[in-house]
């Protein structure tokens, strides 16, 4: 007896996003052109990657460093820059205490240095700018979301876009200067005068779901695993369908 395969399709790959396997398979040289400090613990690293084939906001890449003896270290990093910045990509790295790769970036790297990258990778967390997007991030989890915000601005898109970001304090809010009316920051330790301190809660999410755009939100959640669990649960409790929540966990 033969049965046909009928998988549950609740959690489907968005058909509108294609991923090039050739770009993903090839290592390219990326030349560091600029380092910008964002917060005491995070900096943005700008690279020239002349043959970069482009990416969609939300995608990440694989980065590789090689030591003299051939030892390599590779890590995933989300792309912070929008696709409009062609021939260039920007990454924003947290300085992880004792971190092998982020440690090199924050203590050794300077313009002119070369590293290797492959990508863009994974279409699942990508946002092509076609549907209303509700972005929720914490710490460096704001990185792929910022690519979406920048894309939205660069294209002058009118599709609704809202962002909630959690940071310990205003000093640790990455891209603070660039955040606009689309963003609501949430501060967990210190906040500016008049802004309450506390973790992201139902009260932040509920109004956004109460005032849903036509067709509803695509929700994108990014940050540590603990934050992703917390934020995705808030969304589900507020009525966001699970199959319209995409999560990127930084491990």
């Amino acid at each position, binding site marked *: 007896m033969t049965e046909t*395969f009928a998988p549950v399709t609740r959690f489907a790959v968005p058909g509108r996003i294609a991923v090039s396997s050739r770009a993903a398979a090839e290592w390219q040289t990326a030349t560091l052109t600029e380092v910008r400090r964002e917060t005491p613990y995070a900096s943005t690293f700008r690279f020239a990657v002349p043959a970069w084939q482009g990416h969609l906001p939300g995608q990440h890449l694989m980065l590789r460093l*090689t030591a003299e003896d051939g030892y390599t*270290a590779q890590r995933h990093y989300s792309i912070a820059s929008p696709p409009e910045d062609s021939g260039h990509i920007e990454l924003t790295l947290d300085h992880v205490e004792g971190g*092998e790769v982020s440690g090199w970036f924050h203590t050794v790297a300077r313009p002119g*240095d070369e590293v290797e990258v492959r990508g863009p990778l994974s279409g699942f967390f990508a946002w092509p700018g076609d549907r209303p997007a509700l972005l929720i991030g914490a710490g460096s989890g704001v990185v792929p979301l910022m690519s979406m915000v920048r894309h939205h601005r660069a294209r002058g898109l009118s599709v609704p876009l809202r962002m909630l970001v959690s940071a310990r304090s205003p000093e640790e809010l990455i891209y603070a200067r660039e955040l606009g009316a689309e963003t609501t920051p949430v501060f967990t330790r210190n906040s500016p005068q008049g802004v309450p301190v506390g973790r992201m809660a139902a009260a932040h999410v509920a109004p956004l779901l109460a005032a849903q755009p036509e067709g509803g939100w695509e929700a994108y959640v990014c940050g540590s695993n603990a934050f992703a*669990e917390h934020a995705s649960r808030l969304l589900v409790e507020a009525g966001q369908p699970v199959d319209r929540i995409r999560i*990127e966990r930084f491990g």
Partner: protein
Amino acid sequence: MNVTRGFTGRPRVQNTGLPPGQYDAGDDWPVLSAEVTPDLSSADWTFRVDGLVEQPRTWDWDEAHTLPASAYEGDIHCVTSWSKFGVRFAGVSLDAFLAVVRPHGSATHAVAYSHTGYTTNLPLADLTGGRAWIAWEYDGKPLPAEHGGPARLLVPHLYFWKSAKWVAGLTLLDHDEPGFWEQNGYHARGNPWEEQRYSGD
């Protein structure tokens, strides 16, 4: 070789258990899942094997636990570059389930799917011969939900995205059919020792 100026890396001991491009995550067990962790109790968990088999069958939690217990102790490797040494899982060998359903000779591949709708494809040969499990215990305790509990597929010799969390079933096919990450640019097989990370590797 493209040497990175000033990069020495961490002091390293020659570790033959580490596939190329991987690092030892030590005590960490990162969670990498693009989904909302489901609220799935063992009472609601079922596991089905169908497709090119003599006798399709669905097991519930208690029925699956009547099959002979089998454990895995060894290493696991995630495509995001971490490996974890000496982990202990317990459950049932997939061979025990397949012995009941009896695959047709024409079956060459399988699609594993989860209770959440996640899919991943595997050659049947990677699921047989004591190389794959349905695992419900980690380190002597129930498998945590964020790591796929109540039960996940365990195929430790392949990158860990093949070890579908919250596994709901396997469908045996006579051809390969890309699953969720494979449609998202990841490799069809995912052998860590050959660094089969992305399609084209």
